[in-house]
């Protein structure tokens, strides 16, 4: 198990390194530069040249890359061009909102997805299953930002039940300090979290239904029934324990889904998180901020899949016993 864990960690670091490298190269090769005159501003070419020198942009790309990596080894993510502060500070501010949004969406995703999938499996091929299956398919085939826009339009714009964007009321609750402000946060959170959560839950429900039906036909489920166990126990103990194994893998896959989803949903709902930060940084060619955000995001995804694999190994005695991961 330990050797396996070390191998997995090494692979994780390699993946993050690869993502950082690719992002670094791509964003530098993208057309446009961070310091340029545009329609509104006339900037002295002297100033631009000085800024480029100051941030090392006048160096050849390989040199910049090596310098970036050297700083990274010292825990330095560099200075954000557009925010005029360290990249680490900008990211640190954006992480809690994204964590709040993605975490809530994750709970909705799995709580709702597992419950619905289980219900569908038990009522397989009957009305409830078929109806829910179609609803799930609808949500599943809908792009997250599109669902977000619809919810925004209906519940924010027309019905005025939820706010049309932002994370908190800037006047009443500049930061969460009281129960009322927590309520305000939840009120702002509902639509974006539902957008992400519902799309995720639709996929999770389909997996869970399939996993449950697959397991329900297994010989050991029949053995459990032949023992005289209650149907509840047969399904919720003997079948479900096995059906949850593939769902753990899905849990690992939820991280990349939630992060990419967050990018779009945060933009739709003006949610001040990592997704919005990254998009803005890309548009402004804020190289260090883009690369830093990619580093954090890939780190989270890789960590998520590592956690899923460890959970899998713990949950499945066949893997636990062998002492090796999948």
């Amino acid at each position, binding site marked *: 198990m330990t050797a396996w864990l070390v191998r997995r960690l090494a692979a994780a670091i390699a993946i993050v390194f690869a993502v950082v490298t690719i992002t670094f190269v791509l964003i530098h090769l993208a057309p446009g530069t961070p310091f340029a005159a545009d329609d509104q501003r006339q900037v002295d070419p002297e100033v631009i040249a000085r800024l480029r020198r100051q941030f090392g942009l006048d160096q050849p790309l390989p040199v910049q890359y090596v310098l970036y990596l050297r700083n990274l080894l010292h825990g330095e993510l560099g200075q954000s061009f557009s925010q005029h502060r360290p990249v680490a500070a900008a990211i640190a501010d954006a992480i809690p909102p994204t964590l709040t949004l993605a975490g809530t969406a994750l709970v909705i995703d799995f709580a709702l997805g597992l419950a619905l999938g289980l219900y569908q499996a038990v009522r397989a*091929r009957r009305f409830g299953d078929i109806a829910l299956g179609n609803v799930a398919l609808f949500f599943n085939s809908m792009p997250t930002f599109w669902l977000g826009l619809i919810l925004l339009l209906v519940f924010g714009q027309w019905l005025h039940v939820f706010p049309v964007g932002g994370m908190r009321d800037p006047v009443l609750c500049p930061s969460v300090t009281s129960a009322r402000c927590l309520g305000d946060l939840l009120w702002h959170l509902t639509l974006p979290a539902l957008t992400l959560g519902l799309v995720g839950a639709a996929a999770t429900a389909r997996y869970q239904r399939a996993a449950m039906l697959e397991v329900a*036909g*297994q*010989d*050991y489920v*029949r*053995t*459990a*029934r*032949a*023992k*005289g*166990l*209650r*149907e509840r126990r047969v399904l919720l103990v*003997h079948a479900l*324990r*096995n059906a949850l*194994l593939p769902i753990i893998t899905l849990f690992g896959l939820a991280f990349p889904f939630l992060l990419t989803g967050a990018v779009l949903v945060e933009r739709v709902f003006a949610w001040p998180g990592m997704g919005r930060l990254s998009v803005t940084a890309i548009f402004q060619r804020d190289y260090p901020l883009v690369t830093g955000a990619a580093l954090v995001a890939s780190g989270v995804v890789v960590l998520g899949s590592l956690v899923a694999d460890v959970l899998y190994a713990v*949950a*499945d*005695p*066949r893997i636990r*016993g062998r002492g090796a991961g999948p």
Partner: protein
Amino acid sequence: MTEPLLRVRDLKTYFVTEQGSGTARAVDGVSFDVYPGETLGVVGESGCGKTVTSLSILRLIPEPPGHIRPGSFIEFEGRNLLTLAPKELRAVRGNRIAMIFQEPMTSLNPVFTVGHQIAEAAIVHQSLSRRAARARAIEMLTLVGIPDPGERVDHYPHQMSGGMRQRVMIAMALICHPQLLIADEPTTALDVTIQAQILELLDRLQRELGMAVMLITHDLGVVAGSADRVVVMYAGQVVEQASTGELFARPLHPYTEGLLASVPRLDTRVSQVRGRLHSIPGQVPAATSWPAGCRFHPRCPYAWDRCAVEEPPLLDSAGAEAGTHTVRCWLLTEPERRERHP
């Protein structure tokens, strides 16, 4: 004679197949009895309905696609199992009637220890505490001959060989001392040497616990060695039923004759009788389209016009007491045809 423990009458279990190829009449009017303490052998080729029959007894047929037809009747200890309420049915399953399955590799739950799985029935049916049930599970592992039971009780199925798993299945089935054990080809998936050990184990446990065993098998050698009476099945029906001695000495149904002819020598010791039921010419028909008339007629060397149109009922053998040797074949009404045949 004593009252039967289990009385199956006119059991019909059909499956509605999805591709619209019609209804599979997997078990189609099967009747037989099991007496207390005896071993009833059930033999027949693959697909003749042995497993479906045994699953029907405990109502374990997956529904859909399967269903047991109204009019079927399965009486156990004076009650019709087919009309029992779920709660009463659960009190029979694993407690009064237990079952072991063809596939020891897949019949145990991979995520629970064998001890947990063995103890479960005792917790449910005898309200034992977890500790007491665990102790019982260790006792059962000892009884079925698993070495180091105190340690094995905490092992998972994947840590055991096929033979060991089948012993675990037997331990699981017998923990509540059932009156009837249904063993559906308990040795088919195992090595030959392990097969013999498992059969000996079943024999010994049956004597010690005094239960009846319904032993389903492909293997006539197994029947000859263990069964008191035999039911021969073909195409979802019982075609012949007799005591083991009578059946081997005077097989009357052409199908049974064929089965026995495929066994090397009948008068040799049981251990040498290891024939498999594969040497009857022709194919078993599909359960969705049984042949009209006698279902065996396309493969029967004696068949004549009547066999293709009229379905024979179960007839009593002339030489035996009524009901002790029954055969589903028109030859019993026209025995001279058998003599005329080369």
